[in-house]
């Protein structure tokens, strides 16, 4: 199944520095020229409960995640248990937990029935013998892993140097431990997993998560103020932007709550800089009134929602695509907005830039959706480059134009719905940015004609935008597929992988992906559904939120929906299994 990749799991109890082990492995694998797509699973607690890193790596490009674990490292009892349960039949388990057969129930049966290859290293002894401490058990295991994977130990050695650059005293002992693990031989058999690297030029690739990518996009797009209230899984955007704020000189402010963050961002945008906020669904609830204000006074506002499963606190560290309806319909009253959704690191980097441009050009709120699996998952992707998406602000700056401004230009009724915007202070013509219904200068009106046409002016922007927004993108041969999918967000990754995997099984699959969701572009979509007979939707939610939107805006109906709502992302297996049911060929 996971033919085009190797899947490595590193599991242990939450809170024991798992993520730094995971990081080290991924970076070293990347240096070996592998493509990587990984995920982190951990509970919403500071300590306790099982956690893991699942690292998919391959010498060819991979886009999504697989759940067929080929090889696993268990760091402790919790980790070993987890690995035993989740390893594929015949998979390899490496660990150093010597009391395992006493403390894990049904151990022999599990190992036997799944025909697992288990390698219990005396890792503790090895670490201590080599002058290391108990915590270096992990390094010993990694050294052994390197052997099993047939990789050059030097790559691990280099990464250890980088990882511990701030604690140089422990670099050498870690290297010795890794070497000892690498050299450890089991008397009977030596396990081996054939992984081959095509020696991809790793220097042109970066290994990065979606949240950081989004933050970098914001920096590139000239965002000068970031306001947020911490909320998983969006918090790392705040943390990263704060970390690099001495380089970027960006104002990064943790606000006292989400309403404040949104209001400050709106104030900053109104004054004329670029500001950003990010949160998750529950925090966004609190920002919706501000979104409505942005719609009314036509001041740009961009809010990122990194989704997790709700309702209420839900599953704070897990993933979902369940706040699309929220992004589209929340906030009282009717006004125009754009909703886009990231699908991976690169699209996070790019979409935030588009979001800012669209918000300023059309003077509307823009909601950018991401997901825990995108925001917190790592992947290798071609290095981001500067100046690919020019900044478009849609503000009046030229002196002659400024001089010609009338106050009533600000909210003038136009055929596109877009009026002139200029920044406070820039012209003698002042205007009222009025949250009450208003007329062209922004002065309050309750007149039925004026109110009716001003409301309409704001709403017809939707049409203007629709005429200018890109159509969804099709992956695979656009026509006459055995099975077709329509989706959004992180589904794209496993879909792209699945198209390939299915092709190898002689099944022709294709996929239509919405990057821009609202307003909904329908032409290409309708064409796609004409040219393909067996179309399903794929969504990480229970209700099929995009499916419902499409059904309302077109004559299409989707009785066949691949939906998932248990906090986990789509794996290629989910798709391939679904296809197996729906396509007879298999």
């Amino acid at each position, binding site marked *: 199944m996971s033919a085009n990749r190797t899947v490595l799991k590193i599991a242990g109890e939450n809170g024991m520095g798992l993520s730094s082990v995971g990081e080290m492995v991924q970076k070293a694998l990347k240096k070996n020229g592998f493509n990587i797509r990984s995920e982190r699973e951990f509970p919403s607690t500071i300590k306790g409960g099982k956690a893991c890193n699942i690292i998919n790596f391959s010498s060819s490009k991979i886009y999504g995640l697989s759940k067929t674990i080929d090889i696993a490292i268990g760091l402790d009892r919790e980790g070993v248990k987890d690995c035993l349960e989740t390893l594929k039949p015949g998979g390899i388990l490496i660990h150093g937990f010597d009391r395992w057969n006493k403390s894990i129930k049904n151990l022999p049966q599990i190992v036997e029935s799944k025909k697992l290859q288990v390698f219990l290293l005396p890792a503790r002894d090895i670490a201590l013998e080599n002058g290391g401490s108990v915590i270096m058990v992990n390094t010993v295991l990694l050294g052994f892993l390197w052997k099993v994977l047939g990789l050059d130990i030097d790559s691990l050695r280099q990464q250890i140097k980088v990882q511990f650059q701030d604690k140089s005293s422990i670099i050498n002992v870690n290297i010795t431990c890794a070497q000892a693990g690498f050299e450890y031989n089991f008397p009977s058999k030596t396990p081996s997993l054939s992984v081959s690297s095509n020696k991809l030029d790793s220097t042109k690739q970066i290994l990065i998560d979606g949240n950081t990518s989004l933050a970098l996009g914001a920096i590139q797009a000239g965002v000068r103020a970031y306001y947020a209230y911490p909320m998983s899984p969006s918090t790392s955007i705040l943390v990263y932007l704060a970390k690099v704020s001495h380089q970027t000189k960006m104002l990064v402010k943790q606000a006292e709550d989400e309403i404040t963050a949104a209001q400050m961002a709106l*104030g900053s945008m109104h004054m*004329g800089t670029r500001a950003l906020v990010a949160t998750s669904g529950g925090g966004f609830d609190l920002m919706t009134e501000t979104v409505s204000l942005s719609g009314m006074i036509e001041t740009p506002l961009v809010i990122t929602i990194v989704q997790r499963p709700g309702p209420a606190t839900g599953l704070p560290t897990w993933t979902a695509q369940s706040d699309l309806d929220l992004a589209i319909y929340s906030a009282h009253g009717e006004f125009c907005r754009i909703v886009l959704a990231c699908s991976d690191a690169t699209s996070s980097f790019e979409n935030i830039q588009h979001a800012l441009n669209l918000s300023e050009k059309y003077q509307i709120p823009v909601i950018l959706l991401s997901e825990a699996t995108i925001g917190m998952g790592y992947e290798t992707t071609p290095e981001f480059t500067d100046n690919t998406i020019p900044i478009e602000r849609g503000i009046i700056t030229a002196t002659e134009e400024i001089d010609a401004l009338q106050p009533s230009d600000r909210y003038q009724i136009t055929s596109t719905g877009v009026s002139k915007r200029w920044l406070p202070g820039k012209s003698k013509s002042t205007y009222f940015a009025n949250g009450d219904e208003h007329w062209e200068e922004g002065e309050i009106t309750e007149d039925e004609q004026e109110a009716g046409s001003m409301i309409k002016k704001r709403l017809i922007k939707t049409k203007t935008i629709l005429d200018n927004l890109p159509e969804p993108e099709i992956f695979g041969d656009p026509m006459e597929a055995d099975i077709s999918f329509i989706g959004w967000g992180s589904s794209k990754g496993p879909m792209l992988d699945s198209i390939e995997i299915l092709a190898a099984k002689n099944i022709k699959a294709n996929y239509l992906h919405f990057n821009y969701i609202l307003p909904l572009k329908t032409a290409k979509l309708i064409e796609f559904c004409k040219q393909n007979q067996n179309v399903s939707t794929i969504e990480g939610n229970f209700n099929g939120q995009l499916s419902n939107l499409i059904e309302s805006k077109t004559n299409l109906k989707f009785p066949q929906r691949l939906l998932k709502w248990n906090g986990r992302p789509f794996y290629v297996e989910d798709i391939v299994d679904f296809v197996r049911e729906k396509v007879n060929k298999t």
Partner: protein
Amino acid sequence: MSQLHKLINKAEEFSAYESDQKHTWCSGCGNFGILNALKRSLVLENIKPQETLLCFDVGCNSNASDKIKAYTIHGLHGRVASLASGAAIANTKQKVIAMAGDGATFSEGINHLVHAVRNDYPITFIVHNNNNYGLTIGQASSTTKHDFAMNGSPDGVIPEPLNTLQFVLSFNPSFVARSFSGDIEHMTKTIQMALNHRGFAYVEIMQACPTFNKATPQEWYWDKIFDIQTIIGYDKTDIWQARKIVDSLDKDLAVGVIYEKSKPNFVEQLKNREGLGSELIDEVKSTSITGLLQEFR
């Protein structure tokens, strides 16, 4: 030269602030005086309409949003402190003033007040405290007198009125002043001082609302107010003196600057922007990120 004299010399500047929109306040409403004082203080400080961003909450007070010709925002109910702060820190050269009612300030938006004060964002914040929710027709606010029947609370409210100044003094403000809507000259002076403060200048105006606040009519205030400068030896940098002076809500209401502290404001304390000189609004441009990519390679 008296305030009025100075203003007569600046009649043109004053009239630049005049808007065509009709006022919608009850006759005798204290908001007339406050709006007048606001215009006066802007004119006396030589601030032009173009140089302002006046941020209004939602309430009777904020229906002034199109009654003064300037850059204005009429935001959401309760949120103006944060909206104005976000605007101000993006361009500290534009004069940002926020206006809000007591309902907005001490109920719906009290969180924003506390933290805007603590952060010392560089704005002037003017509370129109008329001891009720005027625009929604006379409900009780946090400052409504105990046991006084109001629309929606016919038995009066249960809690004692909030001592707003004691409250604000408890979270480390840098400027706290009070004035009275009946005294335009005093309000003007007070707002002028606020406009010259570096950080968050909290100005509370005890505002007459003849329509709904029958408990404390105009005369009630005139009887009780006194200028804090008349207290010999009053040290407005002494928080404990300030706390004592504001303790009573029923008699001897001091007006003027009650507490003041000179310190760098929020923007001035941003370590990563030290010595930068430019404003956030000037810095929006396509920015290279290649330097930041190193750690991901």
